[in-house]
């Protein structure tokens, strides 16, 4: 709220949308419209979060709405846009090989594990909201932008690792991913109620504390998180449902796709749902 609409993040969002549309225009095989729609919806949610403050309710609730959009809803929409798959389809072979190597590398494997994503996303949220970091970000512009970027990237990493259609080599199976979603959802709900219960002291270090408004924000956090978690759970279980389709569809036991991306995505069951 101390930091109003800033042209810099909005320009970055415009760049994301344009780059994706450029990629779609280069794809001669025809890119699925619902993926383009998901990506553009994600960009629109980002723009709503970063744009004129008038779009959001005033006070802590507005701030919370901004964080929910940046860290949960926009990332889910962007992940369903499958930008890496698009890149692999339209980029030249050297770029494709580089992306493939990167995706198969050990650091990306560790970073892309759902457990890492939970630690960075939900863990990061605890770190910000239970320490003076939150109050500090209110008054420091770059810290504020940095935190927003962290929410977005951590949210994206989590959504991708749990149910993203993009290739994810060595992605763990359904129980691990459902478990990660469970831990993240529980962690989010517990933190929201804890903030509600301790609104007179948390987040620490705020000037001019309005306890009722902070409680409203905590309630929004609790229910707002549900929406993103429901979307992810639907994507996750829908992929399982598709994977178990009777053999007529030629799924189980048949070689994966013959496209280069197919080999990358041999464990990418969520991908099969969004790709098919």
């Amino acid at each position, binding site marked *: 709220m101390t930091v109003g609409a800033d042209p810099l993040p909005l320009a970055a969002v415009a760049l994301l949308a344009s780059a994706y549309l450029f990629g779609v225009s280069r794809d001669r095989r025809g890119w699925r419209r619902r993926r383009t729609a998901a990506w553009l919806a994600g960009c629109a949610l980002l723009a709503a979060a970063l744009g004129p403050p008038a779009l959001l309710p005033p006070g802590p609730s507005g701030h919370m709405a901004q964080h929910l959009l940046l860290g949960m809803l926009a990332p889910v929409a962007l992940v369903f846009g499958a930008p890496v798959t698009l890149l692999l389809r339209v980029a030249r072979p050297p770029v494709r090989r580089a992306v493939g190597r990167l995706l198969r590398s050990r650091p990306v494997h560790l970073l892309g594990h759902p457990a890492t994503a939970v630690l960075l996303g939900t863990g990061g949220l605890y770190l910000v909201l239970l320490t003076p970091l939150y109050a500090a970000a209110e008054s420091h512009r770059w810290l504020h932008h940095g935190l927003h970027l962290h929410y977005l990237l951590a949210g994206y990493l989590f959504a991708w690792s749990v149910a993203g259609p993009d290739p994810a080599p060595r992605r763990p199976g359904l129980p691990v991913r*459902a478990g990660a*979603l*469970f*831990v*993240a*959802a*529980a*962690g*989010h*709900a*517990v933190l929201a*109620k*804890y903030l*509600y*219960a301790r609104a007179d002291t948390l987040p620490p270090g705020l000037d001019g504390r309005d306890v009722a408004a902070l409680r409203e924000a905590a*309630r929004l956090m*609790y229910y707002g998180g*549900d929406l993103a*978690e*429901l979307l992810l*759970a*639907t994507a*996750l*279980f*829908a992929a*399982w*449902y598709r994977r*178990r*389709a*009777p053999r007529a569809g030629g799924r189980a036991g048949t070689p994966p796709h013959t496209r280069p991306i197919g080999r990358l995505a041999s464990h990418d069951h969520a991908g099969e749902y969004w790709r098919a």
Partner: protein
Amino acid sequence: MDDRRSTAAGAVIGVAVMAAVDEIVFHQVLGWHHFYDRSTPSVALLSDGLLHAAELLALVGGFFWFADLRRRGVLAARSAWGGFLLGAGAFQLFDGIVDHKVLRLHQIRYGVHLLPYDVVWNVAGAVLLLAGAALTWRAWSRPAGTP
């Protein structure tokens, strides 16, 4: 027909639907339950969060599991109904005894004499649970080959 899986899928959906009814009807529509009350201890917040996340996954996962059984033609409808009632009753009793009384997360309603509310709540849960048990028993013990 797969009675065991049908009952289990029904139970998962029953738990989640009852939890959703609790959240929607008693928290949101009637406003009887409080989001949090001052006497709530921290351990109850933890259990509430875990339960909330489990309900969310159970709701979505249960429906896809149900759909999968149906698609394979192995869904036993009576067993699934039995499981649904078992799950719903079990959740209602758990909520009424553990959440409300043991953990004291929140009460059914505020500013009223609580006893009749607690009794109705838990008796309703027990009735659902018993009806579910009876239905499941009958479904499981029918002769093979009958629907």
